[in-house]
């Protein structure tokens, strides 16, 4: 049986040029991006010309002048895509978006501390590290050492964009110091030949087409990792 995922996080990150000051719940309400109920329960952490941070129901929005990040821990994650397409496709199509990321992070527990160590040894064997690796292999108890972070990158090149899919595996101390594990997958896209004035639509077209297939890839990677703990 596969370990249960205890925490999920999905996010879309846009890189470009933004005006954080407009991203207030009342602006989203007036433009019918969110419901009245969501606007009434929204939490405004800060809305300023340099930075905005608001919580809109299950969505958390963080905006800086060059970065727009929308994340949620609650499925269906398609809500992220709908929100971004509505904001930038309908309302702010002239915003500059040159790069974007589609991300997923999951947190789960290995059945035991030993199983987590085994998982680490599988993804980062100690033998190639020589004497350093031998000492780690022999460590135990409070001195137990091993993999702290491993990343794998798949390079992606298409006609209108290039990018990569990068997966990271590391311990998740916030879940459990001995057994917690975190897997993060970043799908990164950079538009080819983007010119100032191109606006947001080119990026949105790619985002719209790639969101669900990339989420499936995230799932595929996560299942591969989980499969080692079955």
């Amino acid at each position, binding site marked *: *049986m*596969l*370990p*249960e*995922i*205890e*925490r999920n996080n999905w996010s879309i990150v846009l890189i470009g040029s933004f005006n954080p000051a407009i991203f207030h719940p009342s602006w989203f309400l007036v433009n*019918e*991006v*969110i*419901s*009245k*109920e*969501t606007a009434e329960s929204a939490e405004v952490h800060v809305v300023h010309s340099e930075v905005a941070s608001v919580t809109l*129901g299950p969505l958390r929005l963080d905006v800086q002048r060059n970065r727009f990040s929308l994340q949620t821990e*609650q*499925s*269906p994650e*398609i*809500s992220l895509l*709908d*929100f971004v*397409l*509505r904001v930038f*496709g*309908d309302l702010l*199509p002239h915003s500059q978006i040159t790069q974007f990321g589609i991300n997923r992070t*999951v947190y789960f527990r290995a059945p035991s501390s030993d199983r987590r160590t085994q998982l680490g040894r599988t993804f980062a064997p100690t033998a190639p590290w020589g004497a350093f690796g031998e000492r780690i292999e022999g460590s135990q108890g409070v001195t137990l050492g091993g993999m702290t972070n491993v990343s794998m990158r798949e390079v992606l090149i298409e006609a209108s964009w290039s990018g990569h899919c990068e997966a990271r595996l590391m311990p998740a101390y916030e879940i459990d110091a001995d057994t917690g594990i975190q897997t993060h997958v970043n799908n990164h896209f950079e538009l080819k030949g983007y010119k100032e004035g191109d606006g947001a*639509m080119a990026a949105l077209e790619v985002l*719209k087409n790639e969101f*669900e*297939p990339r989420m*499936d890839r995230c*799932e*595929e990677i*996560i*299942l591969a990792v*989980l499969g080692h703990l079955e």
Partner: protein
Amino acid sequence: MTASALKFSGLDVDTDEQNQTAVRRLAFQELAEPSAGTRVFSRAAVATAVTPRPVSTPFAFFSDGSSLRAPSPIGLRAWRAIPTSAGKTFEWEGLVLEIQDASFSARLRNIKGAKTDYDEVAEFDLADVPPGDRDLLQPGGIFRWVVGLESRSGTRQRYSRIVFRRLPAWTSRSLKKSEDELKALVSGIQWIKNDATSTG
């Protein structure tokens, strides 16, 4: 109660309507109790809305409630049949068909988790629609229905969540344009009459 209880029962076929109306019953053995808000499969709704025999997944819905199907169970669109992590989440996209006094019926398309490769019809209580989404509840409205288990602060709990999609107008325009193009294409097809006397 474990997540392994999250299973569909098999196909439930009416003996008097065999080979005509195969009614798939989504029987969440422990999960989809009335608290999950779903009187799964009203026979009345199914009888009027379900296709005689589901053949494949629709990959496009039209505003009149009809759908376009791929020619085989392996559709033209990428099929999201990858089981979710640890198999504990099911997600469908729903198209609202009809709204009654206290419930609404919807055609469901599997997004993830379920093994079915065709659409199904289910009935939901209106009370399960979040108040903020009530204005989006109308025939043709699109929503996601997610059912699963989640762990919050160490406590595992079941959930059933209906979220109506606030689709951007520009993609709706694209969809309408594609729909119009497709209809124009279909209406322009010259069908060859079937000649019953042909021996060829």
